[in-house]
């Protein structure tokens, strides 16, 4: 087990290096000069030149990359070109927000996706199955931003039940924090639940057809026990993997949802940073997300082994 984790970590290092190089060079390919964006409306040529010097924008890209890596290795991600805030501080303040949103969205997705998936597998090709499928499909096809705006108008403006947008840290007011995050988590969660539901359904259907389930039924076990104890446990293996990957995606920032609900997470930060050519921020966030994603992949592997004892010896 320990050897496996170590091997995975070693494999992850080149992945992260390649990601960082890719992001660095892709960013430089973007049209638009960051110095022009920072120099303000007046475009004073002297200021523009100073900014180019200060941020080494005149140096060749490999040199710039080398300097950045040297900083990062020392734990310094640089400062936001737009606001002066150190990137580490930005990551510090945005990561909890993004994690909270991801966790809450995941809870919504699991609560909706897995039960409906099981139900439609057990009641395959009945009215229940069809209804569940339609709901899942609409969850996948309704655009996040549309559902978000609709919910804001209905729940906040018309009914006044929940705050329309924004973010409150749980440490400041726990319930208000949950309330503010409820709508965005629901919007994100419904979309994910559709994917989860479809995967749960197909995994369950496959397993319910297998020999050992027939044996269990032949033993005279009750339906509930067959489904939850015997079938679900096996079906969970691919679903857990899927969940960790979906969670990894959520950590990259839910750009549209964050934009609509004005949640100050990774997604909004990185989009704003791209538009203002705030290189330091984009690089820092992407690196952080890549590390998170690789970490979650590793976690998926570990969970895989924990759930599936047959793999433990391997």
């Amino acid at each position, binding site marked *: 087990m320990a050897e496996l984790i170590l091997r995975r970590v070693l494999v992850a290092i080149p992945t992260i290096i390649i990601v960082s190089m890719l992001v660095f060079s892709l960013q430089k390919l973007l049209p638009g000069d960051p110095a022009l964006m920072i120099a303000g409306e007046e475009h004073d040529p*002297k200021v523009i030149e100073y900014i180019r010097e200060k941020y080494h924008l005149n140096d060749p890209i490999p040199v710039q990359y080398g300097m950045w890596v040297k900083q990062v290795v020392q734990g310094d991600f640089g400062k936001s070109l737009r606001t002066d805030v150190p990137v580490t501080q930005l990551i510090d303040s945005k990561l909890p927000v993004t994690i909270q949103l991801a966790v809450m969205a995941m809870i919504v997705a699991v609560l909706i996706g897995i039960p409906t998936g099981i139900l439609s597998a057990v009641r395959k090709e009945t009215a229940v199955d069809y209804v569940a499928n339609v709901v899942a499909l609409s969850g996948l096809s309704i655009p996040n931003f549309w559902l978000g705006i609709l919910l804001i108008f209905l729940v906040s*403006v018309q009914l006044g039940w929940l705050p329309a947008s924004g973010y409150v840290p749980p440490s400041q007011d726990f319930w208000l924090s949950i309330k503010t995050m409820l709508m965005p988590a629901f919007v994100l969660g419904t979309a994910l639940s559709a994917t989860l539901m479809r995967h749960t359904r197909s995994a369950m259907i496959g397993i319910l057809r297998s020999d050992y389930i027939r044996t269990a039924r032949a033993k005279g076990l009750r339906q509930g026990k067959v489904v939850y104890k015997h079938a679900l446990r096996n079906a969970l293996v691919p679903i857990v993997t899927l969940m960790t990957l979906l969670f990894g995606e959520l950590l990259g920032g839910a750009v549209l949802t964050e934009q609509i609900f004005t949640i100050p997470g990774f997604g909004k*930060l990185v989009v704003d940073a791209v538009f203002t050519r705030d290189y330091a921020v984009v690089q820092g966030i992407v690196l952080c997300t890549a590390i998170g994603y690789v970490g979650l992949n590793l976690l998926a592997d570990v969970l895989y082994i924990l759930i599936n004892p047959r793999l433990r010896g391997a």
Partner: protein
Amino acid sequence: MLKTRLAVLSLSLLASSMAYAQTLRIGLKEDPDVLDPDRARTYVGRIVFTALCDKLVDISPKLDFVPQLATSWSYNDDETALTFKLRDGITFQDGTKIDAEAVKANLDRSMSLPDSNRKSELSSVDHVEVVDPSTVTIHLKHPDATLLATLSDRAGMMMSPAAFKGDKTFSQDPVCSGPYKFVKRVQNDRIELEKYDGYWDAKDYPIKKVVYLPITDATVKLANLKAGDIDMLERLAPTDVPQVKADKSLDFEPVTGLGWQSITINTNNGDRAKSNPLAKDKRIRQALEYAIGRDVINQVAGNGIYPPAQQPFPPSSPYLSDKFPVTERNVDKAKELLKEAGVPNPKFELVFGTGSDNQQLAELIQAMAAEAGFQITLRATEFAAMLDELDRGNFDASLIGWSGRVDPDGNIHPFVTCKGALNYGRYCNQQVDKDLNQARQVSGVEKRKPLYTDAQTILQQDLPVIYTYYQPWPFVLNKNVTGFVPYPDGMIRLKGMNVQ
């Protein structure tokens, strides 16, 4: 008896309403940039500074200069020295005194900080002299009529020297001279300020706390206002104007700003200008102007909040000349001009920043110009990329605006003088340069206005820039917010404002 009871009742009512009169939440269209007046560059940043940092002088809604930190000012005879008398007993938000030394330290910083965006604004300043603790004189290299206006904006904002000379980055924890002091900032989320009780005019500021919330999506920003999650917002989307006007719980407070929007034409910048039909003959540019109806733009794209602009100076400015009324749309005249120029169907590309407002405006211009024979292709480009292309001359014509300045110079000089930093089309005319440079050095409306009018006589013929409409600042407030006065500079001055 009854009287006393009423008095007690009204007093307690007053007290309770005052207890709630605490926080004003303002929805901004973008997240402000760096909170350092010397380095800042955005409109929303200036809105925050208006509460955070006082200036030497302020402007009135009619664009006159009024005292703020300085109570009076005067020029010497040849207008090469401007002397300010400072208000008595004023302090920065850290309690240190605002005296002539502090003012000098501030102006020196604005002129010497390597990435100061105020340097060019203060380029006429030679040195700053401390006369006595409450008197400071700014010595100039040459007379500069724009200086007072410059000092009524970010260059004149006074920060605590202890804060900018200290170890911490100033913008992380700004200490200034305004009625509200910095509490905290969460990037992309909020900026919180609270009242500074030692402010010289604290009694006129009933609001205790101000929160600025950047909400990028226009629909969501308005929804927040309607749900009561914010108290006011700036820059309502023109498409939402009818809806807001119909809503009795909201107050619509638009004001015509100091800035303009334009069709800027590449007349002379690089190879692209050689193939650009608009660059070849001014009659083609004149035809384009006749082909588009500014009133149509106002009605269709602006829902009535895009006041037609013919000149770079706003209606509130005394420099607006009555010699150049807004050109009426005249398709026949446009066709005639194109025929005279020998190009009945000029083809060009119009580039503009992405966004639904801009898209609609560009399509409207395309459709109107097509009636006269123009064949316009549209290209929406992300803003940062567009700036780069304009700078390199890779455009025929572009929709671009300017946020506007109090002094007329800022609205015209950088755009049409040969070496102007914002002259994307590289238009160049010696007489225009001469007029505009001279207007920088003489003072008084009566001396400067003829120079601007003379330059405009040439520019209105040559049309390197076709102004379309004045930048509006449409504010929307909940009815419970009182005392708001819209200013043409689009700033939110909190003096006298309250939340009931």
